[in-house]
Structures are given as structure tokens and as C-alpha cells.
């Protein structure tokens, strides 16, 4: 191996350390027997996790986030799948423009989307803010991600598979059920998981659209100002980090299985 290899490898290791270092402090301090996130470490304890579980408003926020996340992930995947099919399998007039429009949330700062939604909900529709309004905002954010995942999956396999199915006697629905859906399944599963994570972690839109029931990130944000609430926050933050990591790994494994993707590393 050349010297250049070593240098780049060292660089990559530092890169990963930089990436993970700050985040790993959270689980570290959450297990530390102290009330502040400071060195030196004082000793191992699980009491912060106990405090977290005893905090009912935190648990309510967690429950709210789970409900919103699950509903949003299912709805947005259910909407994104037919849309992805339409754009990859049918000649839709103006399809390119429609796709660019639907991908806008990926590039528009979320604060703009958030205040825009706020105006529509409060001033035009006159609806009260609730978990429903949060879910609507998340839906807008998740559909483009779901479509990206599903379209790259649908483009990853040969269109003649579906033609072959039609040719062998299967109708439109039968072809979808017997060929398209099984082949798109890894994409559907990773879309469900990723949409859940996006919704579960989303802060800015939730912050603007949340009513009396807050989601977990909004609750956490309100806690971050109070130093005496820090340990419980660290415990919950650590659990969320671990949970998200597990879901991402699952999503990646599912997506990599089956027919290998032609475009490595895309989202």
C-alpha cells in the first residue's frame, strides 16, 4: 500500500471522529452520575433514564411523535408510490415540471415552508394548531423523500419485466401485485422507515405548527433552556440517537438487498 492510502485513511478516521464525537457525548453524559454535562466523569448511573421515564409530559410528547411519525410515514409512502410509478412508467404530460415542483421542499429553507403553512392554517383555513397540522407539514416534507427512494428503486429494474408480465396474460393490477410490488418492496420499506425518521426528528415545522400537544423535538427544545432538566434530556436524546441509527441501518440493509442498485450511495 502506498503512503497516500495511509494519509487518506487517517483523514477518513478523523472525519468520522469529528462526525460522531459531539453526538457520542450525549450518551456518555447521560450515563454519568452528575447533573451537568461536564468533565470529569463521576460514575456510572441509570438514574437519568429513570427520571426521563417518570417525566409524564416528556412521555406524552414521545407518544405524540410516534403517532405522527407512523401516520405520516404510511400516508406519504402510500401517496409517493403511485406518484413514483406514474413518473417512471407512464408518459405524463408535464411530468418533469411536476417532479421539480414536488422536490422543492428539499431546497426551500424549512422556515419559509413553516411560516407559509402557518399563514394558510391560521389565516385562510382558520383551523386551530394541533398534531394534525404538524402531520400535514410533515407530509409535505416526506413525500419528496419517499418519491426519491421509490423512483430510484423503480428505475433500478428493467421495464420489460412489467411488459413481460402483461405479455404473459397479467392485467394491470395483477402485474402490479405480482411483479412491480415485490420488486419495489425494499424501496417501500426504506421509504416507510426514512419518512418515519424525518417526521420523528423534524423540528422547525413542528415548532411553528404545534398546538397544545407538542411533539418530542419541540418539547426537547423547550427543555434545553433549563439546566436542571438537562440529565433527563440527555437520556432521551441518547435513546433517540440510538433508535434513529438502528432504523437507518435497517433501511439501508433492506434497500441494499435483492437486486443491486445501479446508483450506489444515493438516498
Amino acid at each position, binding site marked *: 500500500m502506498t503512503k497516500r492510502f495511509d494519509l487518506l485513511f487517517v483523514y477518513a478516521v478523523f472525519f*468520522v471522529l469529528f462526525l460522531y464525537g459531539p453526538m457520542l457525548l450525549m450518551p456518555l453524559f447521560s450515563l454519568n452520575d452528575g447533573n451537568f454535562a461536564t468533565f470529569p466523569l463521576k460514575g456510572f448511573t441509570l438514574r437519568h433514564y429513570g427520571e426521563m421515564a417518570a417525566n409524564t409530559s416528556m412521555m406524552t410528547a414521545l407518544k405524540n411523535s410516534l403517532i405522527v411519525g407512523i401516520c405520516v410515514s404510511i400516508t406519504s409512502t402510500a*401517496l409517493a408510490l*403511485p406518484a413514483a410509478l406514474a413518473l417512471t412508467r407512464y408518459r405524463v404530460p408535464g411530468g418533469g415540471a411536476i417532479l421539480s415542483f414536488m422536490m422543492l421542499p428539499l431546497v*426551500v429553507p424549512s422556515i419559509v415552508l413553516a411560516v407559509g403553512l402557518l399563514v394558510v392554517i391560521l389565516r385562510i383555513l382558520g383551523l386551530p394548531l394541533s398534531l394534525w397540522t404538524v402531520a400535514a407539514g410533515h407530509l409535505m416534507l416526506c413525500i419528496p423523500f419517499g418519491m426519491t427512494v421509490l423512483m430510484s428503486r423503480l428505475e433500478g429494474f428493467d421495464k420489460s419485466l412489467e411488459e413481460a408480465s402483461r405479455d404473459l396474460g397479467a392485467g394491470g393490477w395483477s402485474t402490479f401485485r405480482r411483479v412491480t410490488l415485490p420488486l419495489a418492496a425494499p424501496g417501500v420499506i426504506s421509504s416507510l422507515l426514512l419518512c418515519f425518521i424525518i417526521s420523528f426528528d423534524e423540528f422547525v415545522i413542528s415548532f411553528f405548527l404545534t398546538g397544545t400537544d407538542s411533539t418530542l423535538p419541540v418539547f426537547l427544545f423547550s427543555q434545553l433552556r433549563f439546566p436542571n432538566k438537562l440529565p433527563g434530556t440527555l437520556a432521551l436524546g441518547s435513546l433517540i440517537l440510538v433508535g434513529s441509527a438502528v432504523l437507518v441501518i435497517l433501511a439501508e440493509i433492506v434497500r441494499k438487498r435483492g437486486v443491486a442498485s445501479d446508483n450506489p450511495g444515493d438516498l
Partner: protein
Amino acid sequence: MSAGSARTGLSLLSPAFLVMAATLLAPVVALVVMSFWTQSGFEIDRTFTLDNYARLGEPGEGVVWYGIRFPFAYPVPAVLMVKSLAMSLMATICVIGVAWPMAYFLAFRVTRYKAMWIILLTIPFWTSYLLRVFSWKIVLGFNGAINSGLQWLGLIREPLEFLLYNPIAVMITLAHSWIAFSVLPIYVSLEKIDRSLLEAASDLGDSKWARFRRITLPLSMPGTIAATLLIFIPTVGDYVTPTLVGGPGGTMVGSLVQQLFLKQNDAPMGAAISIVMMLIIAALVGLFLWAIGYGRMRKRIG
């Protein structure tokens, strides 16, 4: 395909499109409309007027910020806008500079466990943005890990105050939050490069460095540019990072919009600032793409 299949396609597309129209198009339109209204006390005056925009451009005494003069009667938005652009530009440059070698390593050096490396870089992107930003507060804070660690080691007596609540902290945090996201597009464009092109370049006499400059770098441009835009655009309007680690000196235009909507109760002005922000970002992006000849590049590299 026949006309019937276009109909089927449209009917498959329409549910998702209608939801997006209601949750994306309607808010943007509403924002535009609202920016032409004005706030008077607790009421909103719905007569069409350009007052909000006029106020943003109204000349006045102004302020001087970092040696730049802002001669406006209401200079806060302009100052924050320029500051936001400068900070995200710096953060973007740092991110691309740091992420590029990593993407190169991933594409050209990693042969085994490639999937593992990719997952390792993907996880941080998907884990809560709020928590990532918050973890920097733990690192840099007055009672944070660096200060308490250095004190513990006896290197300093008093906590260093300059770590948190300043533009540098905002930039470091922004860079950290977006860095994983930028590796992947660059990596994809590097991975797509046909290895025989590199062999051909060597065969035609290029040294390793010349080959990198003449083949690898130009062919990676689509991914690098995509990464640049994907980081620059959202960070300009970021709200979480400046609020948590920026302090009074680190506020950005997103914080102003938030305040106008939720605290100062001047939603029309907030809407106008949002619109102007989007227009400025779009203009800068367009200018950037035009300046580097992105259209031609796309056609050639694909």
C-alpha cells in the same frame, strides 16, 4: 404509449400532487399574498400595498456592520440577510472542502466494507438535527465538555467564554450538521467515473496529479455542485443553529422571520422578508450556475 396511459399516469400522480399543492403551493402563494398586506396593531389590513417591500428598501441613517454600511431606515433585515449569506457561504465552503477528500477516499480507496462506510456516513444525516446542534452546545458551552475537560486537566482556570454564542460556533455547527449530507452526492459522481478513463489519461501521459486535475475533478463537478447547493440553500434560512449556539451575535435571518411571526406579531413583514430571502437565494444560485456554465456541463457529463 397511448393517450390512455397518460391518463392513468396522471390519475396515479394526482393524489400526491394535490397533497403537495395544498401543503406547498398554497403556503407559498399565501406567503406572497400576505407580503402585500400590512399589520396594524392586532389587525391585518388586507389592502394591496408594497409598503413592506418599500420599508425594506427605505433609505435612512442605517448602521455599519463589519465595516459595511447599510443605509436603511430599517437595516436589521438587510444586515441579517448579508450575515446569513456570508455565514452559510463560509460553512458551505468548509463543508465541501472537508467532505471532498472523504468522498474521494470512499470512491477510490475503499474496496471492502464499502456499504458499512456509507451507512456510517448516512446515520448522522438522519439523526435529529436538533440533537446534533444541541450536542455542540454540550461541547462548546460555558459548562461544556471542552471547558470542563480543560479545567479538569488543569490547562485553564476559568472557562473560555468565546467558544459558544458567536458566528464561529454557528459555522462549525452548521458545517458539522451538513457534512455527512455533502459526502454522498460527491461520492456518487466520483463513483460513476469510468475507471478506464483514468487509465486512458495515464496512458496518454498524465501524471497522477494531472490526471486528477484534468479528469477526476471535472467529472466530479455535477455532484460537487449539487452538494454545494443542497447545503447552501437550506442553511441560509436555518433557525435552529443560530438560536441554540449563536447567541445575540449569531442570529440569522431565519430567527428574524420567526420573531416577526411568533413574537413581534408582524406576519406580513415576516412574509415579505421570507419572499425576498427566497428570491435572493434563487438569484444567487442562478447566477452561480450561469457563471460556471452548469447547463453545458450537464449536457456533456450527464
